[in-house]
């Protein structure tokens, strides 16, 4: 039995459903009752009841790609801020292609405090802080572009269903867009003008994430902006 309509706003503690359902994101189950645990929009599926949250913070998950900032350099690695309650560790062996020699190698030559990296989380659980790697293709130090920060709750909307939104953005703005699951997005384009347009579009998506027909509206906005420039 459902107690709300689909896509209605719910607050923490609201009884969403009772019966044989699975508690999805941002909900919890007490016996056969499912309650909301965050402010957001409720979505009733065939089996799963979930809440699309209005605001969340980033909790690391193995396999996520994130954008982080180097905060400290240790003797055998770096401490990285990944916009989450937990600081991530990047070991020298996960960053260098050659064997790491503590006496000879100066880690600040590769990455120094303040540098940004695009990395993947290789391990995380309740007991240990997340560990990163930048050894895979596409990962590594960020050398150019601009950064936008949005709430991690909006990331699925920015990517869109089957990446429709992000592909449209890339096509329309001619920028390379790298999305970190932690709510940090890197944009690098042929000119600052292009980048500015992409940032504007992303901020608009984050602001209007809960409305329908967004992809079309964003496309229209970008085309209009581009038209004015010419």
């Amino acid at each position: 039995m459902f107690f709300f309509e689909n896509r209605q706003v719910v607050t923490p503690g609201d009884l969403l459903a009772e019966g044989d359902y699975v508690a999805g994101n941002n909900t919890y189950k007490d016996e056969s009752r499912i309650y909301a645990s965050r402010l957001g929009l409720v979505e009733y599926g065939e089996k799963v009841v979930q809440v699309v949250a209005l605001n969340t913070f980033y909790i690391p998950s193995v396999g996520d790609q994130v954008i982080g900032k180097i905060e400290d350099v240790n003797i055998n690695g770096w401490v990285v801020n990944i916009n989450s309650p937990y600081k991530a560790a990047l070991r020298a062996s996960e960053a260098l292609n050659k064997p790491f020699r503590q006496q000879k190698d100066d880690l600040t030559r590769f990455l120094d405090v303040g540098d940004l990296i695009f990395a993947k989380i290789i391990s995380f659980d309740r007991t240990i802080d997340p560990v990163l790697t930048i050894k895979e293709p596409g990962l590594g130090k960020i050398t150019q572009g601009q950064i936008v920060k949005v709430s991690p709750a909006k990331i699925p909307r920015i990517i869109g269903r089957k990446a429709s939104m992000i592909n449209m953005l890339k096509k329309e703005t001619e920028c390379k867009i790298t999305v970190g699951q932690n709510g940090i997005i890197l944009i690098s384009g042929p000119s600052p003008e292009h980048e500015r347009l992409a940032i504007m579009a992303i901020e608009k998506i984050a602001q209007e994430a809960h409305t329908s027909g967004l992809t079309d509206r964003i496309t229209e906005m970008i085309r209009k902006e581009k038209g004015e420039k010419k």
Partner: protein
Amino acid sequence: MINENGLRVDGRKPNELRLIKMEVGVLSNADGSAYIEQGKNKILAAVYGPREVHPRHLALPDRALLRCRYHMAPFSVEERKSPAPSRREIELSKVIKEALEPAIFLEKFPRTSIDIFIEVLQADGGTRCAGTTVAALALADAGVPMRDLVVACAAGKVDGVIVLDLNDIEDKEGEADVPVAYMPNLGLISLLQMDGSLTIEEFNQSLNLAMDGCKQIYKFQKEALKARYVTIKEEVEECLR
């Protein structure tokens, strides 16, 4: 304290709440924030976290550390209050923290801290209750997963009459005061105090009245949270026109 028509010092009926106004997301630098006006009370709450614990040794291995600071501004009362935390403020910080604790999924975020700051800008009795109510809103705004919202309200006895939501004069001159914090969907009480003396019957009456008051305030709380979403939606629709 109660006039011949049965009305209280500020003209309210015994079971009437003060005027309540709530707003969510008022501070941009905090992860979550809320503001409440309840009668002459004006209280701001800010939430930070979950975030890294400083100092490090306070971190708990199995759950998040919840910290709460209730503070009254020097200008919040008639005679200037020293800004240093008083005995009373330290106690209220602890009491509010313990009232909110059972509502939060602390065990989901081990080794982190969630910090709540409650700043009383203007006080007129019942600030611990209003502070709890507004802190719960700020927590929900910050996106901290919660079992339920927490809402608090007091009832008490003034001039032999059981009254709801006491103000400062009624609190000081009255016979008794029973603050209650309540989780409305779960039906659980997370704070129950009593100051003064009541018979068992009067106590039961006060408790029920306070819980009724909580349920009324809960409606305002939900509206305030939903208003956050509605404003976003309205802005978008405005642009579309």
